[in-house]
């Protein structure tokens, strides 16, 4: 049961990163890619009908984490207190900026929300990467299952790290570049002409950066957390993960060169998924490793809810996910094709 719920939560977080990832990427690129008001509108329309549905995966995933692994939810959310609160503020600012920008036709108003949209998207991407890196590196868990991290201490990974240290900052950079790339490929899929060409150029440039930081992240993880490789050594099949990561990376580049943007974007989805799956494999059966000694690790077994909760949960979760998938198909079908400036849903 613990194994199933570990992967259910992982799948929901992957869905969140892949889906909300492209609209975060659009936010990051928005000031650089779009040269005119029309292009800015096109970029916003490309995510308009879907961004909030994408964000629901975060809420649904957070809720699922809460009831399946209450100890993890309680410990991690209070331990990362300041970082999490900043994420919440950024989510508020970002949601408001997407929706309020078009309400008043005034240059200053729009420019203000463009700025907020870029800032919140960029910092969110960095924080998400840093958050994942924190989980991989581990936190100074106490005997009672709690910890508290400042935003930063001395930027070193040690027994008493801060939320930001060199490794988690690297994680933030990886996420920033990866989501910007993801967004660029998405824009190329959803737009035409100049904007599309510019998105492809950006994707190409970002790709080089992504390639470098992805390669750096691997030795980085091994230094910050020497035991990440345990599961890989025990199950060599897991080495498929880095191979698929590389294949997906090259796929993005090749398909984007050929102008097959859909396939390039799909490769980017695969890249993000497999990066996260790779991290999850390294963690299991730990949910949150301790830097204070492995006896303090929060493991699946330690954090798992009672059996009745989880049985009932499995039933409604399966049913609810089928419904959610149907809604997503409806919305994305209504919204398929290139975006245009006339009509609500772009066709």
């Amino acid at each position, binding site marked *: 049961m613990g194994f199933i719920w570990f992967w259910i939560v992982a799948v929901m977080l992957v869905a969140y990163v892949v889906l909300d990832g492209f609209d975060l990427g659009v936010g990051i690129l928005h000031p650089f890619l779009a040269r005119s008001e029309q292009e800015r509108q096109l970029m916003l329309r490309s995510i308009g009908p879907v961004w909030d549905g994408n964000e629901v995966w975060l809420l649904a995933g957070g*809720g699922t984490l*809460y009831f399946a692994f209450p100890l993890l939810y309680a410990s991690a959310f209070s331990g990362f207190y300041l970082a999490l*609160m900043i994420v919440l503020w950024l989510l508020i600012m970002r949601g408001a900026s997407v929706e309020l920008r078009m309400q008043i036709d005034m240059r200053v108003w729009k420019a203000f929300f463009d700025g907020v949209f870029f800032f919140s998207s960029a910092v969110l991407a960095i924080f998400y990467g840093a958050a994942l890196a924190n989980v991989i590196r581990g936190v100074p868990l106490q005997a009672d299952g709690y910890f508290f991290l400042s935003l930063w201490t001395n930027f070193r990974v040690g027994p008493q790290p801060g939320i930001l240290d060199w490794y988690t900052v690297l994680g933030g950079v990886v996420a920033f570049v990866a989501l910007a790339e993801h967004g660029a490929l998405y824009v190329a899929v959803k737009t035409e002409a100049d904007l599309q060409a510019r998105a492809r150029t950006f994707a190409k440039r970002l790709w080089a950066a992504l390639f470098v930081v992805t390669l750096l992240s691997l030795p980085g993880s091994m230094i910050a957390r020497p035991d990440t490789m345990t599961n890989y050594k025990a199950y060599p099949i897991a080495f498929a993960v880095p191979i698929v990561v590389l294949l997906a990376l090259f796929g993005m580049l090749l398909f984007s060169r050929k102008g097959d943007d859909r396939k390039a974007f799909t490769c980017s989805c695969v890249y993000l998924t497999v990066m996260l799956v790779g991290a999850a494999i390294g963690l299991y059966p730990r949910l949150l490793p301790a830097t204070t000694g492995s006896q303090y690790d929060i493991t699946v077994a330690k954090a798992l809810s009672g059996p*009745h909760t989880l049985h009932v949960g499995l039933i409604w979760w399966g049913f*609810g996910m089928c419904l959610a998938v149907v809604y997503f198909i409806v919305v994305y079908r209504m919204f398929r094709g290139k975006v245009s400036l006339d009509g*609500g849903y772009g066709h």
Partner: protein
Amino acid sequence: MDAMLLHRIHFAFTVVYHYLFPQLTMGLALLIVVLKTIAIRRQDERYNQAARFWGKIFAINFLLGVVTGIPMEFQFGTNWSQFARTTGGVIGQPLAMEGVFSFFLESAFLGLFLFGEKRLSPWKHWGAAFLVFVGSWISGFFIIVTNAWMQHPVAYQILPNGVYEVTSFWRLLTNPWALLQYAHNMSGAVVTGAFVMCSLGAFYVLENRFAEHGQIFLRIGVVAGVIASVAQIFPTGDLHGRYMAKHQPAAVAGMEGLFRSQKGAPIVLIGQPDEEHQTIDNPIAVNDVLSFLIYGTTQAEVKGLNEFPRDQWPEPLPLLFYSYHIMAGLGTYFALIMIVAAFLLWRGKLFQNRWVLWALMLSFPFPYIANTAGWLTAELGRQPWVVYGLIRTSAGYSKYVGPGNSLFTLLGFMGLYTVTSILFIVLVYRIIDKGPAVGPLAQASQMVAPA
């Protein structure tokens, strides 16, 4: 500053601000379905225009409800980690279900409702509006189930590691407290929706702009308002109050300011509780009424606070007393003004009666105050417990998050919500000033995206 007090204020501030928006959207969602239904059945385009107009107001409120709602789900973990850790197996479930069953539904169909009218058939567009309504009311239900378990824990057991576990999921969902609270809460949301609609209708009629639409708003708002305002008192408020008297007698004693048990207990209409001397200052009271309201006979004995150890009194007691009295007082006002307005509407005199129109126009803040006061009553009445009778509030908060950190983020939320409030007022003012678009389905809305 006291760590627990700061965590309480943190949650209270963010949740009170958050609930300003859903109470309107849940009420309005129903009223929009009514408008759409009439538009189709009577083939009356004005009702479609009205629905589109309220859709715009709905969209902004919905957006703010969403973005201010996200912090709520996470604050159980950030600020109330010890509570979250022990009860996550029970209340994490309805919270996760809200995301899975309600938010996906709403996010998918709100876009269709707001921007899909041109390409959907009238009934399909009606369906989108209906599903948004269903989604928002499901959302409300799961939140109430969560809160009801904290008010009146049912169907649980404690596992060896001290964590609570559901024994019957069905009983968790059908907790009698949840059903009563849900009925009372949703009729409260309809009260807000109806009063806001009436207020704007009265404004348009008095201003003689968009008066035709203003009359439609008044008609729908008054009919919904009179039903919901009466239902708010009887049966939902009445049943909820009696159930509460049975299961949270200390809370009821605190709400009523009844320090000593007595037969033929009076109802205090106005007064100031004095905890030290255990009296009510300057009371205006009516004898026997409280006993009658709770037990149906004027001679029944009502338990006073003296029956309970001092460390089990709800606190802060005066705030509980005032919250309850503000809620009940305003609730009575709602029913009276709506009955008068409904009578005038029936006699065909409402649109000419400037006194009642003025009263309706100025009344729109009161349902917000009453709903907030009602929730304060529920939450303060439950004190000093976070889960009634099981976990004290003092055992629930995050011990590792110091007062310095929680004050920092509380101030952050205050600043951020000040900005969102200003934006909200500006944008809603613009929508009201522009008024409902007359004519057939106008150009696609200016907004780029659904909320």
